[in-house]
């Protein structure tokens, strides 16, 4: 089972946290501090796994962002590494060449996507297409709700006239 998911930037800034096991706010802060200390200081060629308080933390670096997942002792690390990659691929499809900035300003969207991928600490859907379809369906509902949108498209429209 995945106990939590963390996205930390190279400077140790938190970009996203999702806790599947109960942790108090205080513990969370401690966990983040402890783990970012351990993970950010690891060299590039070392294992993508860290043993930590009887759990294992699997992390992977994408550009300047570290994706970390904490799993049980007997889980398959390589699989979790691929779950991370799976998530990043879905993010990439959704945002189109996702970059850290996308996640900074749209962290709630990243949460929605994560909710379709993992539930209660387990992988619920391994098909990218299915996840994408669900998210698109949710967004299309959202779409109709926002009309005052598109300031940028207006500007673009004006500019291209």
């Amino acid at each position, binding site marked *: 089972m995945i106990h939590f998911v963390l996205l930390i930037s*190279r400077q140790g*800034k*938190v970009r996203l946290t999702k806790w599947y096991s*109960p942790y*108090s*706010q205080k513990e*969370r802060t401690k966990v983040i501090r402890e783990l970012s200390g351990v993970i950010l200081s690891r060299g590039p060629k*070392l*294992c993508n*796994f860290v043993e930590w308080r*009887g759990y294992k933390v699997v992390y*992977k*670096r*994408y550009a*300047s*962002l570290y994706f970390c997942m904490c799993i049980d002792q007997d889980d*398959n*690390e*390589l699989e979790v*590494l691929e779950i991370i990659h799976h998530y*990043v691929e879905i993010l990439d*499809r*959704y*945002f*189109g*060449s*996702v*970059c*850290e*900035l996308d996640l900074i*300003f*749209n962290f709630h*969207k990243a*949460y*929605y996507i994560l*909710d379709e991928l993992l*539930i*209660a600490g*387990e*992988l*619920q859907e*391994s*098909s990218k297409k*299915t996840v994408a*379809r669900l*998210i*698109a369906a*949710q*967004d299309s*509902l*959202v*779409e109709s*709700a*926002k009309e005052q*949108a*598109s*300031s*940028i498209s207006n*500007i*673009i429209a004006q500019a291209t006239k």
Partner: protein
Amino acid sequence: MEQLKTIGRELAMGSQGGFGQSKEFLDLVKSIGEARSKAEEDRIVLSEIETLKRRIVEPDIPRRKMKEYIIRLVYVEMLGHDASFGYIHAVKMTHNDNLLLKRTGYLAVTLFLNEDHDLIILIVNTIQKDLKSDNYLIVCAALNVVCKLINEETIPAVLPQVVELLGHSKEAVRKKAIMALHRFYQKSPSSVSHLVSNFRKRLCDNDPGVMGATLCPLFDLITIDVNSYKDLVVSFVSILKQIAERRLPKSYDYHQMPAPFIQIKLLKILALLGSGDKQASEHMYTVVGDIFRKCDSSSNIGNAVLYECISCVSAIYPNAKLLEAAADVIARFLKSDSHNLKYMGIDALGRLIKLSPEVAEQHQLAVIDCLEDPDDTLKRKTFELLYKMTKSSNVEVIVDRMIDYMININDNHYKTEIASRCVELAEQFAPSNHWFIQTMNRVFEHAGDLVKSKVAHNLMRLIAEGFGEEDDTADSQLRSSAVESYLRIIGEPKLPSLFLQVICWVLGEYGTADGKFSASYVTGKLCDVADAYSNDEIVKSYAVTALMKLFVFEIAAGRKVDILPECQSLIEELSASHSTDLQQRVYELQAIIGLDAHAVECILPSDASCEDIEIDKNLSFLNDYVQQSLEKGAQPYIPESERSGMLDISNFRSQDQHEASTHGLRFEAYELPKPSVPSRTTPVSLASSTELVPVPEPSYHREVQQAATVPSSSDTGSSEVKLRLDGVQKKWGRPTYSSSAASTSNSSSQNTVYEVTPVDGSSNVNSKAREASYDLKKTQVEISPEKQKLAASLFGGTSKSERRASSTGHKVPKGSSHVLKSTAGSTTDVLVEKTTPVQPPPDLLDLGEPTLKDGPSSVDPFKQLEELLDPTQLGSSANPGIVGSTSAPDIMQLYSDKPASGQSGGFMYPSSSNRSDDNLVSGLANATTDSAHNITAAAHPSQFSKGPNLKDSLEKDALVRQMGVTPSSQNPNLFKDLLG
């Protein structure tokens, strides 16, 4: 997919004025990004909290605004601050009919609340309603929340609806309903035990996603009860077969592997079902063999499946062919360059070693390489492997290595673990007493107080009882070698408290037993300890009791006791100690020294620590005394239970006891009736359990007094008084030092009933010889060629290992490592890793990378932009492989070359002039945005191509600038494709 991407893009950036949030929120995110220190960040967040607190309670907030406030709360909470003031608003938002708001509300509550939060009760009703909704998206959103927030008490409220949803027409809903039931099962198995058959049914669902989700609960169920699921073996095998034959929809493929995540889950389940069951295992052999063959070992996911195959093979009834295949894969893992694969290889080896120990010998050199690897994770995994393969022949080398490693780490959690492993191995396989004592000394010395006190008590017991053989001389040898080594160690500075306790106890019990050391020598050492560790009352208590024992043994042996002056002063000092426990010990010591030989022998017989103590709880030996007192007119004793009228101590005490064990405030009266029952019973069970544990525990003092009163013939009255005192202290404060000190009094006063055993006068321990042999062993390990020797000592005889080593050398297929390398190079993640060192990714916030050119340059930036967008260049950069290394710098270059042209430009790039450029974003939104940016953004709005894309980055850049979120050139990483 194309369409989705467009939507995503639009949502992400195009609409709603950029990122869909207000300027205010963007500013917040920006300023957080710019914060240089944690303190600054905290300050910003705190002021944001203040703002939100004020705003959120205003009347008539527009819905959109409210939604944003909630998202801002999420942000605040994500950064580790308390946003609890807004929880109720998030809860309110879940009641909203608008899906958009409801979804935000649900997201927020799942992030804010834990399953035991009080507010959950307010959401249950909404969830119930939403689970019945016609809109499947609302149902999905509700199910997401159910998985996170529904607790044991609220399960019945939603259970019927969730079960109904198992038959929903949308597969997404069925899947989530399954996961929700799984969650319920984890929280309270009894609540859903009657629904377990549903999981079986869903296994045959048409949708592979639902089937895959069903495997999660089934895995849990099978873990608990294998036998009732044996009938499913055939189904699982056939599903796995279908997957391996690629009969699942293409969309489940992942990196050319057919549904690997489902394969892994199935293999895990098969491993459980086949464990120790030959018949079930036979069904699996073919399909597992197939997977072994089909797996693509060049991709990470392929290796993940292969690893799971090995786990499965080593768990089920062994099959020679599969074991061979597994061994081959392990060999490939271990020879790989990737640390990840080595790690998995070591782990897999640990699994396989139980079935075929000879596999390890093939890989001994690889294992030793891993052991000496600078990567800590790998090293630890290797120690785990060594731990699994420890035998009496290699225990010395392995434990030695473990301790060497243990000395150098700081991670307390792991240190504790490895220390207890060392102790366990030493106890199990110790080749000799001396080695055992030496090893324990090293463990205690270095792991210090991290070792569980149980380990220390075990050690004391072991020394007292010996190794269980009937051979008394061996036991006394063990003791005298322990005494000898402790006397040597005791002078070293800063020994851990626990170790000192062991030392003191052993010295007190056996310090003079073999007659090698005089009592005055040993007592002198003990006094030194008590002096040197004057802050540690437990150690002092141990020391005083040890002194008492030594004196008593002297008296019993008919020798004259000469109390050293420093000892005398110690006794005097401690008799005025603040710790009542220490005081009592010292007074007892003084009283006992004054008695004659016969009396002391009854009180403290030598070497009787293992004898059972008989406690006369009725205190019948005092009957005469009581009788006398009564005759003299004393008040008769009234048992506590009969003292009805007096509201005194008894109530006080029972209450106090209750409080001490439940820690502080009592909530029972206000809680629901159900939980109050267990909390009432806990004190009882706690109290009774602590009685059995010989570990110093604060809650222990009650029994202490009982035990203490028996041997120390002090009158009962005084101890009664003290008992009350203790109670008072506990009532008003946490159980503090006095009680913990009291607890030691017990643990050592347990040792105060003895029987006489013959004192072994002659010692045939030769410490020098022992040391020499120890050294010899060490050098044996370390002579060149070091590694092979080590291998030999770990895996078997030297000659054998050398032969093996050379043969493995030949066995390595020469090309294999190359193949691995080159294929691995093609996967993207390796690529990322490979490129990073070449072009170290500039920090988001790091200072001063000299890519900036100060002052305005005359180059027209927009020309450059256009040039970059030139179709030919685009074409050349389409290859994702090159982008990482070549075009990314170009982009950076582009950013950095931007001159401060014109007003707006100058305003937008303050970082280039003042160099305060650890800005994630700098400058504010500017009304006069450059139209040129818009043109570039608009020029190719619809053509998005997959993968890292220059154009994408440029567009994002343009948009971001428009938002006023200007990247300084130092932070191109923000725009770097994560998958680039």
